[in-house]
Structures are given as structure tokens and as C-alpha cells.
């Protein structure tokens, strides 16, 4: 994929959120996106046709993160009301609410079988919630973090959390081991490479760091953007060739994965680009901003 193939052309602008949009996520096949924001709603869109499909309202405060199940039938969300919501996508009803976090919940993810929701909270913990049983108690609380956990990633066997204490902690369920990679800088967002070998960690010193998961080695640092006070998302393109991330000045940056050079940057929003999500297959990308818009980018 060359630089020309990067999604840099604005294809659609999705407007509907009142106030900042805090998160935007593609679904598994990339046909729909979910967004969530300060207006306490979650919205389902078709980004390719620019249609707003559904609004999910139940959160009491801002919604910070949202995630689809792999089969797109359920979704989970979390936010400032310290709860994790487990929704049915079609009916728009809340199936379950998981209470227990002692603080705002920053991030939420389904596991592979969509049987567990793992949430990361301001209360310095990761909590795993059971979607199968009717128990509202967490299956497990991981509270080894020393500060607010900002982001969580799940693999088939691992739970990975990034925290403001500067660590990326990998909890391997198979062998019962916690691996803590201390980066020295508050970690804002972690995202897995598509091959699962690397973790991209967005740090609050305006640097994205690429870690080798097996060795904990720092592979590369990506700089140029500003990220000092917001929780900004970063991710890799679907072919792992480029790293992309938003900036607090409304720009979007593309870095070459290997040599870390900024291959492209352009102004996408008028305000902070809070969230970014890359299409699982195509050269398409959605970004969300504090200015209340979601933009779809294509080549």
C-alpha cells in the first residue's frame, strides 16, 4: 500500500451528536460504525452511505467507549456513569448493566466469544463481566494498576491494559502471568497490530510507542502530533503498514510503521480528534472529534 492509498479524502461527515464525540468504532465487517459521545448517546451509522441508523440512549453520563461483538448482535458501552451497558443491537434495549466500577469507565471490549466484557476504569482496575450468566458481579477484578486504566485490548488468551501509571500490562490467562511493560509515560490508548505481535501505545508525551509484545522491546516511536491532555486514539492501518492517530490540533497523522516518518498529515477536524478507527479490510477510516462530527475518510 502506498501513501496514495491512505484514506485522506473526506467522504462523508456524520453529524448528529450534540457535543463531543468520544469514540467511534467500526464493526467487525466494517459496514457500520458506532459512535458515542458526551450527549450520553450511542449512535449506529452506516458510514458508507452516511446514514444514521439508530440511537441508543440509556447512559446517565457521557459514553466513553463502545464495542461490537464479532457477530454484531450485541454491543457494550461504558462511560462516566460508572456502568458498563450490554445492549442488544437490534432492539436497542439494555440487556444488562454491570455496576461495580468505582470510577468512570474508560474503555470496554468484548472477548472473542463475546461472552465476557472487559472494562477499564478510572478506579485503577480492569473488570471482567460475564455476559452469559445473570450475575452482575464481575468475574474478575484486576487491580494491579497504579493509576487509571485508560484502554483495554483483548486477544484470544490475553487481556491487555494500558494505564496512566505508564504501564501496559498483559494478563495471560493461559499461563496465569502478568507482564508489565513500563513506558514511563502515561498510556492513553493501546491498540494491537493486526498480526497481534505488536502493541501501539499512545502516550501523553505526544508520542506513540510501538512495543514488541513478546519481548517488550520498544520498536519505534512516532512523534509529531500533540497529545498532552486528551485521551486520543491511535491505531494501525489494516495492513499494518502505517500508524495513524489523531492530534489535539485537529490533525490526523500517518506514520510509516518502520521508519516512523510522517508520511501524511492533514487537518481533519476543527478540534481535538478524539477517536479513530480503521476499516478492517478497505482503505477507509472514521474519525471523531470534540467538534461533534464524525468523518469518514476514503482514498
Amino acid at each position, binding site marked *: 500500500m502506498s501513501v496514495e492509498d491512505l484514506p485522506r479524502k473526506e467522504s462523508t461527515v456524520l453529524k448528529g451528536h450534540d457535543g463531543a464525540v468520544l469514540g467511534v468504532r467500526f464493526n467487525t465487517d466494517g459496514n457500520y460504525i458506532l459512535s458515542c459521545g458526551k450527549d450520553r448517546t450511542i449512535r449506529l451509522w452506516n458510514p458508507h452511505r452516511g446514514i444514521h441508523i439508530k440511537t441508543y440512549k440509556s447512559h446517565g453520563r457521557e459514553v466513553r467507549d463502545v464495542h461490537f461483538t464479532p457477530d454484531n448482535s450485541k454491543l457494550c458501552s461504558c462511560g462516566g456513569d460508572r456502568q458498563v451497558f450490554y445492549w442488544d443491537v437490534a432492539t436497542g434495549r439494555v440487556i444488562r448493566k454491570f455496576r461495580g466500577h468505582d470510577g468512570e469507565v474508560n474503555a470496554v471490549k468484548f472477548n472473542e466469544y463475546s461472552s465476557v466484557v472487559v472494562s477499564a476504569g478510572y478506579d485503577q482496575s480492569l473488570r471482567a463481566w460475564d455476559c452469559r450468566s445473570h450475575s452482575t458481579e464481575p468475574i474478575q477484578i484486576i487491580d*494491579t494498576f497504579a493509576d487509571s486504566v485508560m484502554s483495554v485490548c483483548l486477544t484470544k488468551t490475553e487481556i491487555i491494559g494500558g494505564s496512566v501509571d505508564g504501564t501496559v500490562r498483559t494478563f495471560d490467562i493461559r499461563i496465569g502471568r502478568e507482564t508489565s511493560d*513500563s513506558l514511563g509515560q502515561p498510556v492513553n490508548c493501546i491498540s494491537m497490530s493486526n498480526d497481534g505481535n505488536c502493541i501501539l501505545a499512545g502516550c501523553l*508525551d505526544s508520542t506513540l510507542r510501538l512495543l514488541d509484545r513478546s519481548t517488550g522491546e520498544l520498536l519505534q516511536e512516532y512523534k509529531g502530533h500533540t497529545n498532552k491532555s486528551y485521551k486520543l486514539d491511535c491505531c494501525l492501518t489494516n495492513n499494518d503498514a502505517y500508524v495513524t492517530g489523531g492530534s489535539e490540533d485537529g490533525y490526523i497523522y500517518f506514520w510509516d510503521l518502520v521508519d516512523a516518518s510522517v508520511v501524511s498529515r492533514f487537518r481533519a477536524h476543527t478540534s481535538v480528534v478524539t477517536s479513530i478507527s480503521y476499516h478492517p479490510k478497505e482503505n477507509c477510516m472514521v474519525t471523531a472529534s470534540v467538534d461533534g462530527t464524525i468523518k469518514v475518510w476514503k482514498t
Partner: protein
Amino acid sequence: MDSDEDDFVFYGTPIQREEDLTSRKKKAIAESSAQLRTLPAWKQEVRDEEGRRRFHGAFTGGYSAGYYNTVGSKEGWAPQSFTSSRKNRAEVRQQDILNFLDDDEKAELEGRFLGMSSQFDTFGSTAAEVARKEAEKEQKQRPSIIPGPVPDEIVLPATESVGVKLLLKMGWTRGRSIKDSHADALYDARRQGRRALLAFSSDDPKVKISGSEPIKDDSEIFPEPSVNDDIQSAKSTPVYVLNPKQDLYGLGFDPYKYAPEFREKKRSRISSKMGSGYSKNFSSRDSLFGLKSGKSAPGFGIGALEELDVEDEDVYATGFEFEDTYVQEVEEPAKLSLEFQKKKDQKDQGNLPGFRVASNSDYQMERFEAPLIPKDFVPHHAFSGPLEINHKNHGIPPPDVPAPEDSNLKILIEGVANLVARCGKLYEDLSREKNQSNPLFNFLSGGTGHEYYARKLWEAQQKCIDQPKQQLDEKVPPGVKRLTAESRGQILGERPLERSSQDPSSSDASTDVQLQFHLTDTFIKSAASFSEIPDSERPFKNDPAKQERFEQFLKEKYKGGLRSTSSSLAGDMSEAARARERLDFEAAAEAIEKGKHGKGNKLLIPSSMDFIPGGVMQFTSGAAEPKKDLQTEDLMGKMYPKREEFQWRPSSLLCKRFDLIDPYMGKPPPAPRIRSKIDTLIFTSDSVKSNKVEKPIAAKQDISHVQETVNQDISKSIAENEAEVDVEVENIERPVDLYKAIFSDDSDDEREELNVKKTENQEKKAEVANTALSRLIAGDFLESLGKELGLEVPPDMPYPTQISRNAVLQKEIINENARPGNLMGENNSEISQNHGLPNDQDIAHESGPSKVDTIYGNMLESGSTKTKGTNISNSKLSRSNRENGDDDRKLKSPVTSHRDYSSSLSSEEERKRKRPRHHRHRRRDAGSDSSSGDERDHHSSRSKGRKKGSSEEKSRGSRKHSKHHKHRRHESPSRSSHHSMEKDDTHPRKEKKRR
């Protein structure tokens, strides 16, 4: 009529054929008879002899009924194997009764026929017959490689007779003679005699031919089995019978023909030796029967009586032995020609009987002589290059010819030569063809100027070859080997050695440095490119010496050539400096390369430098000040990312949900994680009963307590300089008190403040409510603020309380470093505090709007802290720092993990054990005193007194309030106001944690 049918008349009783008739059968019969008698016709049921009902009626399976009761087959009455013989009579065999019998009938008949069961078929004839028939049948069905019936003759199915089986069971193996062990003297003697006879027998091969014989040399045709076998091995027996008896004699009748080979031999022998009458008789018989009968003996098994030796080819020819000896006796006076015979036999050994080695075979191995290798051939393969010119290149260069006078022609020739060199010979041919008529291009076809053209072409080719090589070398530095000897010689000979003077290195090093220079210089292009490096690519302009070194480095790096072992130009630099410089060079070179090879030359060094955090800063200027940055960054680089591993126990349900096997399945729950080395030390060294009694959660809590205390101890030890006396006093106390201090701590406090407790609880609730409210307000306020400003939080806001883990970490590291010399304690604490500030800032921003509440709190608080921190005198400063530290630790929930902190705190641990009392008081001070630092001076005496009191009170016992006193510890009603904010923030969280 009806009555007639109803009444059957029975005569006699039915015959019971089998005694063991099943009861069912009996019953059926009885029933049926009874039925027949009693039931009306329409109710009677027809059953078979087994008593099964066979007629079911049309609706319940009439077919089945008919099938079973009428005919034995689906086909009904049609005979199974009937074929009309009308059309193809030939095919129809003689019909037999068996053809018309059903299977069961055949089975019935089984016992009546006489036949040998294959089991007892000693000779295998029957079995073999059957097998052969089978094979025949099969043969007809499948196509065979060899057409006709021949294969069946040759390949007989092997069957094992009972005799063979028995022998095998008795330990006989195939290929061994049975009578082997019985070799007695007599036998031997006879054998000897016979052998002698045999030797005589083949005495004169030439004479042995009789007229009637079709084949001339018998001894050649038929190998002699006796001798043969003797030589080979005395034990071999043929495994299967090859040929059955085919002559007209009865079994065992013919005395002479038991072995055709013998017969032949004998015949020849006799004919040669004896009188014609006898021999004629013999030979005639031979001719009559011998040839017909084939080569082997009649098929006959091994007889038990067999005394025959293995020499005889056919072991089965048992009965003839007697005759054989008899004959032999007759033939006794035969001549000896053993040697000859043996030779023959050996020669024929490998052949099949009946075959002989052809004198000239059809098949001949074709052999080709290896090609003659010219003497001057060198076994070296030259790979063809990208263009075919490469081959020419190695040829002898055409002589240098002066250019033709016509300058136009000269230019033309040169141009064509260049083109041809570049595009290959094809171009030459093409242009020659095209310009055949053009006199100007005569030189191509050998006209005027051809020689000059040839020379030019060669030169151009030379150049062309050099170029790709050069490119290659740019990529792969050690490409020197490609140089031809000629060019190298040129290089070495022609180039002046001017640069050697610059080399400060030793003389022997200088030679290869020179060489290197010249090597690089041969690559004209690269040399040129480096001589004219643009200014932007001269990163060390300010330092010409360095720039020079850098250039050389570049040459070494990219242009190949030998590396000089001693770094030539930087002779006076230290190893470390050189290494660092090398790193710089690498970085710079990379940057330049990038600038060159990247998309356009727009990426200049400064921009491309950005991604190299460490070394790049340095080469922009030789000044010293960026070095500091470098160092700190290096430190960072060394420290981060840092990997640690811990035990972690996933809950079994989580494993189940993730579809994984619980790694801890069946194992007891793990001990709460050890958070620091201190913990292990504490728990291992002092075995305190109370520890065991504690519930796991409580224990965990205690760990954090310990850590807190330790932390306090650290800061305390800073203040130690001032209060040495205290230390002395407290050294007396025993280490166990540490635990008392920890575990009874709360109750002590509680005891004291028992009276205040209730009001306090209420107060707390109110506080929580207030906090929530204020958070909401603050949150909203800052949200709106953030919206407007894009959340630019004032950067210089002091923020000492929310110390991130990093800050703590750094501080502690520094503290630890300073620990040995306790004198520096104060300064260090100050430094660390200051150091912590900027980092705190980061955290304060960390999650944007989400954390505004704490920021708000800090803003409120900042003023007072600030004044405290800065304005008070030195001693006070340290104290306030300490206090801040305390607060920090409290605010930061216990989880503020001290894992990182674990490194070598043993000294502190000791110290702490010495002074458990001490820090306990301190804690109390922080908690319950009205917290002005000034009162701190008196704390030791005061707290001591209080402690006594409290311990007395403790005996009275007030444990039941244990839940509340936990809160107590973190909170005091009389605490200074500016802390209340953050305290409240963290408070609910803590409460929850504890539960």
C-alpha cells in the same frame, strides 16, 4: 364340506427328527394342531415350522409370507443356474445334479461325496488344482502382461501341505534337507563314490553326442544339479514342485529317468564310454522320453525314507534312490574330469534350468567415452552478465588506434560505440542492417574506422560494466572482489598516494587505508558525489575535523572497501568518545541517506533527525549543552520500556469464558501478591501470629500499611538528622512492635476518638455528599471551560498532591541514591518534590475532562501548599515536604504500588524495624494532630505519652469498631482544610476497596 375340512384325521404321531427341538417349535406345533382343531377357518393362522407367522395378509406383508413359505428364493421356481444351451452349446458344460440343487440341498449332500479335504492333501495336488483353477478364472477376467496360458504354467500357486506344515512346526525351515543330521559314514562313503562317478561321467564332452540328440552340448545346457548343489549348500531343497510327472511310466517305475539331467549326463557318458548296445538302449530311451519329460523329477513329496543326499536336484524323487545307486554302480568306471565340470557348473550357476547363457546377447550396454577435456581447461564457470558484452569484456582489448581524421566520423563512431555498449550487440546488428547503404556507417562492417570503432566499443563496454558494479557496491559495501586485476593494477599504479600524509595512524595501517581510498576513488561517481556534498549534508560544518571523519565514515559505510582497523582520523580520541561519535555518524548518515533516497530531497536533516531521539541532537552542534538532554534521554531509554513479570491468577470462570484451561486448576489460591521486597522480608523474618489470624483482605491492607509506613520512614529518615535523639530512644523497642503498630494502630486511634466517632461518621457522610456535589459542579464548570479552550489546562499549576507513580518512582530512586549519606536528605526531598511537579502536570491533564475534578481540587489547594512549600525555613520545608509526602501516600490509594520500589530497600527495612514506634507516632501526627508543622517538634514526647495511654485502653478492648477505624486512619476531622478536597476524592474509592 365344512365339517370335513374342520376335522383332520391324524394317523400316528409326527416324527420328531431332532431331539432338541426348541420348545417354541413344539409349542407351535401343538398350537397349530390345537388351532386347527378348534378354531374356525378364518381364524386359523398359518405358521412355519418355527412357529412364526408367515401369512400376514395383504396389508401386513403378504410378499414376505409368500417368499418364505413357497420358494426359497426371490426368483421363485426358476432354477438358479439354468442357461439355455440352444445357441451356445460349446459353452455349456456337462450338467450335473449339483447344478440343479439349492445351497441347502448341497449342504445336505455334503457328507455323501468322497473327497480329500485340503487339509490332508499332502501333495497339495487337490489344493493346487483348486488354486490353479481359481487363478485361471481370475486370469480370464483380468488382462495379463503375458498373453496366453503360459503364466499359469510358470507361476503355480503355492500351497502348503500338511506334511510341510508339520515339518515347519517341528523346526524345519525351507531350503533345508530333512535328513541332514543323519549323515553317517555309509552315506558319506556312498556320496563320495557317487561324486567320483559324476566326475568321471563328464570326462569327455566332445564324444558324448549321440545322433538322436537335438542339442549338442548337454553338459552346457543342463547344469548338473548334484555337483552344483554340493558346492552351493548341502541343505537346500526346492521349495515347491515345479513339474508334475508327465511321462507314461507309473510312479517310481523308471529307474533311469528320475532326474533328467542325470539321465542326459549319464546318457552322454555312456555313449562316450561304453559299448553302443547299452548306451543305445539308454539314449534311445532318453530321446524318447527324456526330452518329453522335461528337466525335473516327477512331482513327489519328500519321503520319510529318503536317504538321498541333497545333491539330487529333486528331493521329491525319493523312490529312485535305489535305482540310482544301481545305475551308478554300473557306471563306476568313469573318468575323472572334476575340474572341468566344476568350472562349467559354476559358470552356469546363475541360470535357470533349461536356459543357457547366450553367446551374444541382444542387449548391450552402450558406453560412451567421456569427452576429452582439453588440458588447458579451467573448471570455472563464468556467469553471463546482464548484457552479453560482459563476455567480450574479458577478451583482449583491441589495439588503440588513432582516431580517424574526420571529426564527424569520429563523433559518430564514438556515439555508436557507446550506444552499442549500453544496448548490446543487437543494436549494432540492427544499425548495420539499417545503414547498409550509408557510407558513413561503413565502420560497422569493417570499413574505414572499424578498428577505432572496435576500440571505442571496448572502452565503452568497460565503462558500462563498471557502472552496474558500482551501483551494486553502493548497496553492498564489500564488493571489491569484483574488480578485475587489470583495473586494480590501474588503480594502484596510476593514482598518486597523496592522502597518506593525512593519516595519523601508523605506517602499516596507512597502506591499507590508502588502498581503501583508491578503491573508493575508482568509483568515480560516488567519489564525485562526496566531493560535492551539499551543505545540507555536511552536518558537522562547525567542526572541520569531525566533518572529515564523518566523510570518511560515510565512505567506509557506503562505498565499500577495506575497513581500516584503527580508526584513522580520530587517533587521539578515547574509545568512548569514538563510539559515541560513531553513533552520531550513523545517525547522520542515515538522515542523509533518507534525504537522498526519500521522496525528493525535501526531507532535510533536521526534520529527519526527529525520529532518532538519542544521538542526533549532537551533530548539529558540537556544543556541550545538548549533551545533558542526551543523557537524560539515554537514561529514559535505558529505563523504559521496562518489562516485569508477575504471577496473576485468572479466575476459573474467566478461563472458562475465554475457553481456556485454568492454569491454576486445582491449586490453592495464591498468596496475595508480594508487592515489594520489604513485604517478603517482613513476612518471612518476623513470624507474628496476628498475621496468620488476619483475613487475606486484611492482610493485603496491611501490606499497604506497611508500605505507607515505610514510605513515611523514608521521608522520616530525612528528618533524622534533626532528631537523632528520638532514634536512640526508639531503638530499644522490639521489632514485633512494628506489627502492633500496624495492626493495633487503628484501634489505638479509635480508642482515643471513640467519643468523636459518631459525629465523625455523620460528618463523613456529609462530606461525601458535598464532594459529589462539588465534583459535579466542578466537572460541569471545567467541561464548559474545556469546550471553549480545547481543554488547555494552565500549565504551571502546582500540583504536588496527585503524584503519579512516575514521580514517586523517581523521587524514591533519588531518595535511595541519597540514602547512604543521610545528610543530603533534605535537599533530596526537596529536589524530588520539585522534580515531581512537572510530571504531575502530565497526569493532571491525562484524561481531559474526566479528571477535572481533581484539578479543581488542586487549584483550590494550590495556594496554601505553595506558601508552605516555599516560604518556610529549611527545616520546616523538609517537614512540610514530608507531610506532603504523607498526604500523597494517603491520597494515592494503597495500590500506588511499590513494586518498582522494591529495589534494595533492605536498609530502610532495617531502619524501619528499629523505629516502628517512631513512624507510628508520625502517622498519628499526620492523622490526628491539628497538623500545623510547628507542632511537630514536640511530637515524639507527646505521642509517646499518648501511646502509653492508648495501650492501656487497648486492654479494655474495643475491637468491635474495626470497620470504622479504618476510615479513621485516613481522615481526621481536624485536618487542615486544604487537604480535604483531595482526601474526599479518594475517600470513596478507598472505602470500596476495603470492603
